[in-house]
């Protein structure tokens, strides 16, 4: 089994489909397991990955088959990094409605970013060049307080 470990970095251009979400989840979860993240951490990574991929496919690329999801997962012994980019119109994360505000609690959507921020140790959103949005998420096996 030792020779089946995930490479230090996997970079893929994925179709804008929900199948790509499952594919990315498989890759990331295999890496997280091999790195020795515990089950709760794996769950947090899995949820964050799915939220981010769904945002790229559904909100960023709007299922447009001509647009790709730019996916990279890389790791060291202690650190897992996921970078997901889309070819969409981009958005200002500071303008998202606060899902914890009383008036937004019963909204049907808008909780994905909150969940990623809660479950990952680092979460940044930036503009992609020439277009789109890129999200970078990092999870450490042991987070220093």
């Amino acid at each position, binding site marked *: 089994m030792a020779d089946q470990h995930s490479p230090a970095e996997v970079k893929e251009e994925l179709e804008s489909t929900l199948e790509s979400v499952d594919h990315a989840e498989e890759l990331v979860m295999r890496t997280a397991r091999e790195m020795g993240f515990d089950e709760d951490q794996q*769950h947090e990574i899995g*949820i964050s990955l*799915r939220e981010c991929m769904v945002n790229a496919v559904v909100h960023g690329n709007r299922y447009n088959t001509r647009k790709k999801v730019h996916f990279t997962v890389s790791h060291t012994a202690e650190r897992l990094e996921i970078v997901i980019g889309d070819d969409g119109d981009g958005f200002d994360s500071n303008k998202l409605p606060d899902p914890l505000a009383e008036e937004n609690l019963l909204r049907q959507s808008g909780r994905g970013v909150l*969940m990623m921020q809660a479950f990952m140790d680092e979460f940044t959103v930036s503009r992609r060049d020439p277009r789109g949005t890129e999200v970078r998420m990092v999870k450490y096996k042991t987070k220093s307080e």
Partner: protein
Amino acid sequence: MSVKLTTRQVGDVTVVDAEGRITLGDGATTFRDTVRDLGNAGNKKLLLNLAEVSYIDSSGIGEMVSGFTTITNQGGQVKLLNLTKRVKDLLQITKLYTVFEVFDDEATAVRSYK
């Protein structure tokens, strides 16, 4: 991998036993359709048993909130039963723990309906 929903009647309360994942795609859609159909059929006291739900994403949570709003607006009540630690954590992060009534015991939950 999707969700399996089974309904049963306990007095005038409809218990929905959910099993699997409630995520974007099949799971969340199945969940939404089931709650809507129950409401349309006049079942206004719903108890969602989430003991066997391993995973809910933001779409699944959105459908739960949507179902809650729909049934409440029809004069009904939606309550939750047997949350796993992970689902409980999720509801706390999203502050929905303050919206839903949550129970660990079915009999107590059933008695709580007006």
